[in-house]
């Protein structure tokens, strides 16, 4: 096969080539190297976020690029690399993590950038002068067991978001005809693939728990167990609108549990 070749004449790129490379960077880099995490050993109410490269957009659809940026975000502080202050933080909400930027120059490279956490997944309260934004991750805010809130520990790398331990969504102890089950306590809006786990735990009799994509005839996953046993199944399921269907068949004394272990984050999408 004959490979195309081109001579390297000078160390300075021709303007048209530089223009093309810049356009490529702005319009083809959607996001790469997204990572975020919250671990129990970190200071309370803080998490870490980073990206390798991301295209951000302003309200007019104009883009700029931010590269190689990571920070600790403190949700207890209102401002850059903190909370946007548009609402009070409290249990049972999402803190959406935005990468924001301002003053991109002619080359569409941002002049300043920061992370900002917000309760909104579409319109964070941007500080004055900050124009460009991109949603990069999310954190679930939950009760700390007392009167305060905490961040549900998680690890997010690229397209994979995993909780540190599975999150219980529902427990069933009676027959259930296939019906909608919300995953909103563990799956943020806009997510299409949830990683779930089903557990059938039986004292006496038997129990089968099934998980379906909404309205599907066949289950995606099912777990069955009989007296004194436990059965488990786990994997991905399509979950538009933060919801799936579940069904339970039961005889005797048993419980079926539905957990969410994580979800697929849409990393390489338009800002």
């Amino acid at each position, binding site marked *: 096969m004959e490979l195309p070749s081109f001579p390297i004449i000078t160390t300075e790129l021709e303007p048209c080539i530089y223009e093309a490379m810049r356009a490529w960077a702005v319009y083809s880099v959607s996001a790469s190297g997204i990572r975020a995490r919250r671990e129990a050993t970190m200071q309370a109410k803080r998490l870490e976020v980073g990206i390798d490269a991301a295209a951000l957009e302003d309200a007019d659809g104009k883009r700029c690029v931010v590269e190689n940026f990571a920070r600790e975000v403190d949700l207890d502080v209102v401002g850059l690399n903190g909370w946007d202050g548009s609402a009070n933080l409290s249990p049972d909400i999402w803190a959406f993590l935005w990468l924001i930027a301002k003053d991109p120059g002619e080359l569409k490279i941002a002049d300043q950038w920061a992370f900002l956490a917000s309760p909104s997944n579409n319109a964070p309260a941007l500080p004055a002068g900050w124009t460009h934004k991109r949603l990069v991750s999310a954190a679930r805010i939950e009760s700390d067991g007392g009167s305060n809130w905490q961040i549900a520990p998680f690890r997010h790398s690229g397209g994979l978001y995993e909780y540190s331990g599975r999150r219980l969504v529902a427990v069933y102890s009676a027959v259930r005809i296939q019906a909608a089950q919300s995953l909103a306590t563990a799956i943020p809006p806009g997510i299409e693939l949830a990683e779930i786990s089903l557990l*059938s735990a039986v004292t006496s009799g038997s129990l089968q728990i099934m998980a379906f*994509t909404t309205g599907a005839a*066949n289950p*995606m*996953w099912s777990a069955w167990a009989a007296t004194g046993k436990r*059965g488990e199944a786990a*994997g*991905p399921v399509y979950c538009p609108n933060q919801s799936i269907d579940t069904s339970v068949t039961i005889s005797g004394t048993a419980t079926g549990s539905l957990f969410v272990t994580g979800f697929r984050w849409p990393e390489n999408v338009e800002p």
Partner: protein
Amino acid sequence: MGSGGLYAVYLAAQAEDENGLAGQVGVIASSNWQGPALPAGWTHKRLIGCIPTSSDAGETKIKPFTQVDERLLYHEAQYAVTWSNVTESISLTSLELNKWMPQVCEEVLVDGQVYGGAAPFNLSIYEHRTGQPIIDLNPGTEDFGHESAWMFAPAQMVDYSVSITSLIAGSIAVLGFRMPINQEF
């Protein structure tokens, strides 16, 4: 489109300028996995996806699915084999998966389960022609055996063996497959 089957999705381009940039681009579905019948003047193509379909009372319907990068996931299990209240003993035998994975794919997400009744009973799923089990379920009496795994499935095949008696249920299902979209055209 015919009555069910798997259709290739190609990204197509009409022309290429001196900088290698396409003039017009479009997407076209085809039953030909080697090369689609492109409209006149459309010269470039790349395989990017798959549309699985089924035939329902003579009507072709698209099966719900989600493709993220290389991996296509069905929205419900596609049962290749099911057992319920039967006695069956099958030694190593081949199972065609060509209804659920296209010929260009070699990796498939397989789910196997077998449960209920009195032990011993088992279900094993092997990489085709190797005799090497990837899923090997030997649950105890009234226990639940279940496993899913990404498997190499050359020629759209896996092998399996099963030994069950009445009061035992089981299945082999395809949940998804991996599209070779990051390869040469």
